[in-house]
């Protein structure tokens, strides 16, 4: 499966290894991957925890569409998107995007595309619990 939603902490490198083990031996010339991790600060405030909400059904559908678009735009062997939902702590991975191809340009470009596209289109919403115990919804993405 190229799109995986995880409800508990995951190891992005283990996910990549397990996924890559199923790819045709000798076909892969390049792999690019990105891991987004929860920080303990946002918008000038300390953050002690986060809850990530999603729209079951639409989130997966949108990620599938993004993966399909990546496959159409670049010559790829495969791609993988793993995204957390639920309660997350600082230092824990939130998202992994990875692309495998024969040559490096497609892997680099597709990996970035997957990340930017999911940030603007995939139904996820972050609610932060701040250091002082109050909570707030993240209203917009950081520019990158």
């Amino acid at each position, binding site marked *: 499966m190229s799109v995986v939603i995880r409800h508990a902490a995951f190891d992005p490198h283990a996910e990549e290894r397990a996924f890559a083990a199923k790819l045709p031996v000798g076909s892969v010339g390049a792999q690019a991957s990105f891991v987004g991790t929860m920080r303990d600060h946002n918008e000038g405030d300390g953050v002690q925890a986060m809850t990530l909400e999603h729209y079951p059904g639409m989130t997966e559908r949108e990620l599938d569409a993004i993966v399909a678009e990546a496959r159409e735009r670049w010559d790829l062997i495969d791609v993988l998107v793993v995204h957390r939902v639920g309660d997350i702590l600082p230092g824990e991975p939130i998202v992994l995007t990875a692309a495998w191809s024969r040559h490096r340009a497609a892997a680099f470009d597709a990996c970035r595309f997957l*990340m930017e596209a999911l940030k603007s289109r995939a139904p996820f919403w972050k609610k932060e619990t701040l250091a002082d115990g109050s909570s707030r919804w993240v209203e917009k993405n950081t520019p990158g």
Partner: protein
Amino acid sequence: MAIKVKFFASLREQLPRAVDAVEPDGLEIIADVWARATDGQRMPEHVLCSVNLEHRSANDPVADGDEVAFFPPVTGG
């Protein structure tokens, strides 16, 4: 039949009395569904919409049996 309505994230918290299904009679576009589900509250400026799990805009049509959702700008990744 009915039109199912879902609200997510901060929008859900801001609309505690919004209903989760509306009668389809007389509803033509997504904005109509909002009005009926929220009992006439004004739709905030940055609300996103979907019908049957696909992104749509507020002026797009709806039909009996659809699932309509309203949510704030997405913040995943």
